[in-house]
């Protein structure tokens, strides 16, 4: 069911959501002009004048967009239109010129029960989809590889524990350089995070000094990088490309200047890139995915999802991998354990899971 929906949305991602959101957009004076000015949304970065969510680069974000655009937006738009219509009706019908003598009623049990029960039902309906999405986020499939992300003032440090534990820093490109290489200024970086397409990438996120946030809209990623704590998230990119995100937790004066760039490449390219950085190839990743990248296949991407949709919250929870256990490093990570494991002791508390 979900897979079908997702596939349908994948095919018709652009037009329907445009029309649906158009209803909302008319509320803003400028909206339609902007819509006409724009041909299609860019993948992996914001679109000039855009008013929709960025197109999805993985299955999770596709689920977010489905939930937001197809479930929430129609409901909240209907509620706003309903309230506005009531207000306009009341203001016209019962203005003092039209209704000089006010009535005096103060109770009506039927409508009071109705306007209490109706929101409850609507919210229960929303909650079904909401919990599905939430548990899908926390139901990571078996990861194909792990990257460790460390937020610093004001750059990101990336480590590949599965591939020889090489690390490097990723800094914003200065304007001239960004223009020279054709990357958008304030989004492009010198050394992007490079991952293979169609692989489940586990991301361990921590902070070195203050709290940062590793966020990338196209993959629906947003995870706080907190000193002394390792958070976990994951993504599985649909297709190769360059995807941009930005630090999303106020971290000081250059908060706006530590963007995130993830380059998704096919596996041979990824392997070459790893070797070029002095890393080692890992059998688990190399050839482990079984040939052609499942890039364009929402169905196969969808296999990561249904677990969270069918099992109840209590059974899904263990699968959500509390950080304290998830952090137990894969073999190669023993090169950097001191900081990680030492720092994570505090996150064993029950309030800090996935």
């Amino acid at each position, binding site marked *: 069911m979900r897979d079908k929906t997702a596939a349908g949305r994948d095919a018709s991602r652009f037009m329907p959501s445009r029309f649906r959101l158009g209803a909302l957009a008319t509320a*803003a004076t400028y909206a339609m002009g902007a819509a006409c000015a724009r041909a299609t949304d860019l993948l992996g*970065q*914001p*679109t000039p004048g*855009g*008013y*929709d*969510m960025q197109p999805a680069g993985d299955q999770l974000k596709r689920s977010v967009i489905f939930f*937001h655009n197809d479930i*929430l937006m129609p409901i*909240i738009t209907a*509620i*706003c239109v309903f309230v506005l219509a009531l*207000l306009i009706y*009341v*203001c016209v019908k*019962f203005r003092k010129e039209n*209704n000089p*003598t*006010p*009535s005096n009623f*103060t*109770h009506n049990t039927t*409508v009071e029960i109705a306007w209490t029960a109706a*929101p409850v039902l609507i*919210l229960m309906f929303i*909650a079904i989809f*909401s919990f599905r*999405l*939430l548990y*899908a986020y*926390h139901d990571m499939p078996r990861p194909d590889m792990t990257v460790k992300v460390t937020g610093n003032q004001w750059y990101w440090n990336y480590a590949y524990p599965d591939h020889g534990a090489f690390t490097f820093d990723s800094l914003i490109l200065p304007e001239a350089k960004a223009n020279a290489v054709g990357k958008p*200024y304030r989004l492009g970086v010198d050394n992007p995070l490079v991952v293979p397409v169609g692989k489940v990438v586990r991301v361990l996120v921590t902070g070195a*000094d*203050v*709290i940062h*946030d590793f*966020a990338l809209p196209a993959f629906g990623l*947003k995870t706080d990088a907190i*000193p*002394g704590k390792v*958070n976990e998230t994951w993504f599985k990119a649909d297709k190769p490309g360059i995807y941009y*995100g*930005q*630090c*999303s*937790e*106020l971290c000081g*004066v*250059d*908060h*706006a*200047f530590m963007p995130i760039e993830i380059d998704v490449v096919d596996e041979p390219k990824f392997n070459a890139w790893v070797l070029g950085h002095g890393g080692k190839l890992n059998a688990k990743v190399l050839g482990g995915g079984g040939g052609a990248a499942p890039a364009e296949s929402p169905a196969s991407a969808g296999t990561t999802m249904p677990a969270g949709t069918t099992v109840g919250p209590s059974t899904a*929870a263990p699968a*959500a991998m509390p950080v304290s256990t998830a952090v137990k490093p894969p073999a190669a990570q023993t090169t950097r354990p001191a900081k990680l494991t030492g720092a994570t002791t*505090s996150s064993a*508390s029950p*309030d*800090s*899971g996935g």
Partner: protein
Amino acid sequence: MSTATYSAHDDTVPHGAAHAEHDHKPSFFVRWFFSTNHKDIGLLYIMFAIMAGLIGGALSGLIRLELAEPGIQIFTAGSWLSKIGIIEASKQGYNVVVTAHALIMIFFMVMPAMIGGFGNFFVPIMIGAPDMAFPRMNNISFWLLVASFCVLCTSLFVDGGPGRGFGGGWTMYPPLSTIGHTGPAFDLVILSLHLAGASSILGAINFITTIFNMRAPGMTLHRMPLFVWSVLVTVFLLLLSLPVLAAAIAMRLTDRNFGTSFFNPAGGGDPVMYQHLFWFFGHPEVYILILPGFGMISHVVATFSRKPVFGYLAMAYAMVAIGVVGFVVWAHHMFTVGLNVNLQAYFSAATMIIAVPTGIKIFSWIATMWGGSIDFKTPMLFAIGFIFLFTVGGVTGVVLSNAGVDYSFQDTYYVVAHFHYVLSLGAVFAIFAGFYYWYEKMWGVKYNEFLGATHFWLMFVGVNIVFFPMHFLGAQGMPRRYVDYPTAFAFWNRVSTDGYMITVAGIAVFVVMLAESAIRRRKAVANPWGDGATTLEWTLSSPPPYHQFNDLPVIEAEGH
């Protein structure tokens, strides 16, 4: 909903309009600086809030001007801002302005206006009391707030670490507020918040005592006007939540200065613990900002519909429910910190529940208007604007309550749009509704209806153009608290800044309205709104006598 009848046994005691001139008013300095009169203190609070609101609004102007186009134009060396020199023209200066805008608007504009101003002035009158329970404590509440504001302003001129002032946001998360701001500026912010917190706690104690012990004969809890109910719920939230903030910032004070490690991971502390403490205060705080507005809107809507409030008890207990549930939803501000997934599911569900009592209030206001005889005076315009805009802000709150969707919206402009719809367009519209509603009563002069309506329409159009495009920016992923942004976000930022200009024009009309009424001095009448205005303040002269209700009014259940 209830009416008052006087029983004056002793004619030698002055009361009511006819004797107002015989009131013994102290000299200017004693009256305004040592004031123990709840109405004078209320006026002081209102004037303070207007002043703070203009400063906070000017700061938001700096933000909008900076964000008008990509690149850093204002907060950079050599700009006009650097020539003025009050605010540091740097990226740190931008963060300081964002922080100060939030703190000033929350602690020194909305709270003083609603609770200190309207609450002080009208709660005693509405329950038929001569004054607040502790008049001197009332005085120190106000002056602590002034001291607090001065300390906060001082922090702007003091070294913060990365530059002048504290730029860690109003949420003040450590470690950015500890190792990230090593200078004394943040210690001043802590002191300022401690003073403001003490001021509010004293005020809360005062209101609780007044409302529970000083109601006139016959003024039962279930006959209290809804504004009194709203203030009662609000001050309970204050009393229970502010000590938690005080504790959290005191712990940080010792982290910064005395070597403790409450929030320092290197010493075994936990930065996330601070966020729990902060939001345990912070979430009730946002209801503190809006609840008195709910009360005022009920009065305005009932008065100008010439109809009693629909579902009085449901309205009162909806506010109580919002207050109670408001204490158990705090971690919905923290979906991205790595909470256990089941906790996130709980906080999502609990947060959604708040939509139910809020929906009851929205529909009850509309039902109050239904069948009424509506007069579109300025306060009513603001109230109707409030109802619709609060609905818009409310439904985006339902969107954000879903943790899975919040992963995409957290810390983006979508959140900024959401909370400005409920606060800047909700709370502030409620304040303006109350301000115009009680203008004659408080200041003793009439406002100009044309200027009031012009103010409303400019403001209504302006703030919508400021904040509606922020939904689009947030959906596209623009993070908050950014001094500079990728060019893709330029269009809607430009629109938003244009909207700010319209809003400024609206505020200018508001100031003209104040000046016009002060110059013309059209004499106020006791009740300008007719038989829709039923609460006790309309039985007194405008302005009310210096001491009202020397003989307690007797309240009878009538028309309720």
